[in-house]
């Protein structure tokens, strides 16, 4: 049986850990709230651009001829953009995204395709290094510093790669926010843009398509919108991932804090038992000694 001092040391070390985890829980709760706000603020633009684009699609413009829609018959060079976090201690957040990407990559490689990995976030970079898979390009996750400008830069880079024929398809692997309590890793195709990725979301809308005047012309407006659409898409993927990361970290830290509470309770009981046993033992010795003398 562990002695009193050992148990006491363990209790105090767990108490210290608990302090850290409960602080981290509070920090990520605050960060999560902030990300949620940003996510909500970015929603109107996201919805609006989808609406305008589906309206445009309704006009029957020959938009599908735009190079961003161009499907390659046999896509052989594929880029996967994996968005992970910079830090761990957030449960299975990073490993879920990475697993998803790696499985997807393996599948494509089996089909004999060339896969370029574009990795964002230190956790992802380290993992790819660990499994010895070459990375096309990697940058740390910009986290709080992510703004629409950096999303624009990234989307322009990807668009350029696609338009020059360097890659035939671009996928994003990120963590989608299904609701504020449920997130799941997902892979979506960014390029070429699939016409059904935004149209037909709301079939009721079909009947109320308004006849707009387009300035300078339908085609110009449409072509102008597409890059903007990509930027907004990438930006929202980043925001969703960042929100999910904080959410996952909060949950992980809450679990850790709860677990340490349980451990402290259990250890305190064994500490008291050990103490009581020692006292009982001493009394027995004294009584035994007194009896021997008497």
């Amino acid at each position: 049986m562990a002695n009193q001092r050992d148990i006491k040391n363990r209790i105090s070390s767990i108490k210290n850990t608990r302090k850290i985890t409960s602080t981290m829980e509070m920090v990520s709760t605050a960060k999560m709230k902030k990300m949620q706000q940003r996510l909500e603020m970015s929603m109107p633009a996201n919805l609006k651009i989808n609406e305008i684009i589906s309206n445009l699609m309704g006009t029957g413009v020959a938009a599908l001829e735009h190079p961003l829609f161009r499907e390659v018959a046999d896509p052989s060079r594929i880029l996967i953009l994996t968005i992970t976090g910079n830090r761990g201690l957030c449960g299975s957040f990073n490993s879920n995204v990475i697993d998803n990407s790696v499985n997807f990559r393996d599948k494509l490689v089996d089909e004999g395709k060339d896969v370029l990995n574009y990795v964002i976030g230190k956790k992802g970079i380290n993992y790819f290094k660990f499994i010895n898979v070459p990375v096309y390009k990697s940058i740390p996750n910009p986290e709080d510093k992510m703004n629409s400008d950096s999303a624009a830069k990234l989307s322009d880079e990807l668009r350029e790669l696609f338009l020059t024929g360097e890659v035939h398809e671009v996928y994003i692997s990120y963590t989608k926010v299904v609701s504020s309590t449920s997130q799941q890793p997902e892979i979506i195709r960014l390029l070429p843009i699939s016409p059904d990725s935004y149209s037909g979301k709301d079939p009721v809308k079909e009947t109320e398509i308004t006849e707009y005047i387009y300035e300078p012309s339908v085609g110009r407006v449409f072509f102008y919108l597409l890059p903007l659409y990509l930027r907004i898409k990438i930006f929202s993927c980043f925001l969703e991932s960042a929100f999910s990361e904080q959410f996952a970290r909060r949950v992980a830290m809450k679990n850790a804090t709860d677990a340490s509470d349980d451990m402290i309770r259990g250890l305190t009981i064994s500490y008291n038992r050990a103490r009581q046993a020692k006292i009982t033992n001493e009394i027995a010795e004294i009584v035994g000694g007194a009896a021997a003398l008497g």
Partner: protein
Amino acid sequence: MIRKIDCSILTPEKTLYEGSVGFAVVQAHNGEMGFLYNHAPLVSELGIGEIRLRDENKTDYLVIEGGIVEIRQNKMIILAENAYTKDELNTAEIEKRLKEIDDMQFAPFSKEKYLVKIEEQKLKARLKVAMR
């Protein structure tokens, strides 16, 4: 009857402006475009320039750097790539950056020169709004 347009200006990051205005002027792709009550449904590409939102005796100024405007049933929505309200702009900072750009040297027809030219345009538009 109130003859006003509901106006909202969205950027990818947030909703920058929301309110009803009597008269709105935006920088379209090739000049300014004004909107009054009962405008026909329209979608237009926007350029780099200022937005004036006039309501009774007050005018709000914003700067917009590309985007799109949609008006329908007296609801105007501006979807901007980037936009700032007048209060967000700092005249001294813009002038400093403009000066820096002025001193830069580029090879003719280079990509850098083109990019800087665009930045200069944006800065000039910002300055114009900031000085209002």
